[in-house]
């Protein structure tokens, strides 16, 4: 799908600058899978992908697939368009989500397809995949 949010103009900002360590995340998103870097040695999850474990100094990191279910850790409702291109986009919700199965790594994403005022800290959410174009897919969330 290409979300209404993306169609309203936010999709124009999905310009990725992928590097060695973030590529697997974005490749998986393209396949509608959510993968989070996890240290092979100590099991710590991290975002954004960096190639290093901040906990044990390890450099052996694997991508662990998660369900995409999670809980809103915090959020804001953006009402003011900081650039003109966002005039048709506001209001929109930006949430910071604790992902089930990947404690310690938080994913920032929009909560879409609901009234912005319906979102709360602690709201259960699940991931949806926003296919922006032929190359880029952005994970977002809906209320579970």
């Amino acid at each position: 799908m290409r979300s209404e949010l993306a169609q309203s103009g936010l999709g124009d900002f999905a310009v990725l600058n992928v590097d060695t360590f973030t590529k697997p995340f974005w490749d998986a998103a393209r396949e509608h899978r959510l993968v989070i870097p996890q240290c092979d040695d100590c099991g710590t999850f991290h975002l954004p992908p960096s190639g290093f474990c901040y906990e044990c100094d390890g450099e052996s990191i694997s991508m662990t697939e998660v369900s995409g279910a999670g809980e809103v850790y915090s959020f804001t409702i953006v009402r003011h368009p900081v650039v003109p291109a966002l005039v048709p986009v506001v209001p929109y919700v930006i949430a910071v989500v604790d992902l089930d199965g990947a404690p310690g790594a938080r994913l920032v994403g929009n909560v879409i397809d609901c009234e912005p005022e319906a979102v709360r800290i602690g709201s259960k959410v699940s991931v949806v995949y926003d296919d922006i174009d032929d190359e880029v897919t952005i994970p977002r969330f809906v209320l579970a």
Partner: protein
Amino acid sequence: MTRTPTTAIAGIGRTPYFKRGASVPRTKLQMACQAIKAACEDAGISVKDIDGFAYYSGGFDTARIAQMLGIPEVTFTASLTGGGGGASAAVGLGAMAIDAGQATHVVSLMTLQQTPDARLGAAFATKGKSAYSAPSESHVDFVAPSGLFSPGQMMSVLAMRHMHLYGTRREAFAEIAISQRENAIKRPTSRFTEPITLEDYFNARMISDPLCLFDYTQENDGAVAVITTSAERARDLRKPPAYVLASAHGGKGRWGLAYQQMQMPDEYFTSSGHRPVAKRLYEQAGITPADVDVALLYDHFSPMVLMQIEDYGFCEIGEGGAFVEAGNIRYGTGTIPVNTHGGNLSEAYIIGMTHVYEAVEQVRGEAVNQVEDAEIALATGGPASIPTSGLLLGRSA
């Protein structure tokens, strides 16, 4: 005191403050040089006495400034990394250069000109198909596609969780905006001098929940410069020295990019990032929060003032809301007057240097809203990605 101060701020200077973009046709460097000259005049030294430059937030081109002003010889020029978080530490950087014998009169400054293509509120907007662009890196992909572009949106996320965890109310953020406006009213330098009522606050448009218009800093043009020199030299100059009691910058590694990435540990997610800096600052100076007479806390967004009040130990963590609502930060009546100059919210936003300026005036005893017998003033840099910073200035050595 654990150590006798060896350095002091001897001069402060500034240009008028303008609404964003309104300083044109002045140039940024013109304003910088005018602020430097004003600071030299204040200190009673010649511009030709300057030999050091200590910056933050990317710094400025010393080559051009030194050439324009005809500085006889530059012996030190350096900048902190990061952004506005380092504001107060630029003075500390200068002080270190003086202590190390690398310079005698060091300028720290900020000059800002927010023309339509240089507005910080869209700082993190990626290029896309809009006219705005920011150099982007791979980690930005984890926030920008969600439309998380502005510092205010980011701070809103922290404020929302603070409210959730501690029951902090919008009334507390309102009190910060209202009290700072009260402080600004009497000042000729202030950009905003109309009183704000609680009703005005709640009627203001929301920008990014839970923050409304009055929770946001202004956008301004202007320049502020300060001259740091040795304590001994400062005693011979025109104005009373504002002794550098302590300066610290940095932060926990995992604070890192902070709200630009939202990966901070739960323990200090809803903080200003200043806790470790505050601890080192007080240790260096050998004082406690109770010894601080006036706090100039970087106020890009009102909730971050509240979190600094907690992180600098003026109240317990989580109790900032009740503390502020009880009137504790009011000038004249509160237990710890905060942002007596009106701050970024009401006086002007020059990325933290107005706070240093006010701290100097307070310990000199020449502030517009002078705190009676102010001995020690705290000035902070922005709650931001690493580094954050703090500076303690004292009337006495």
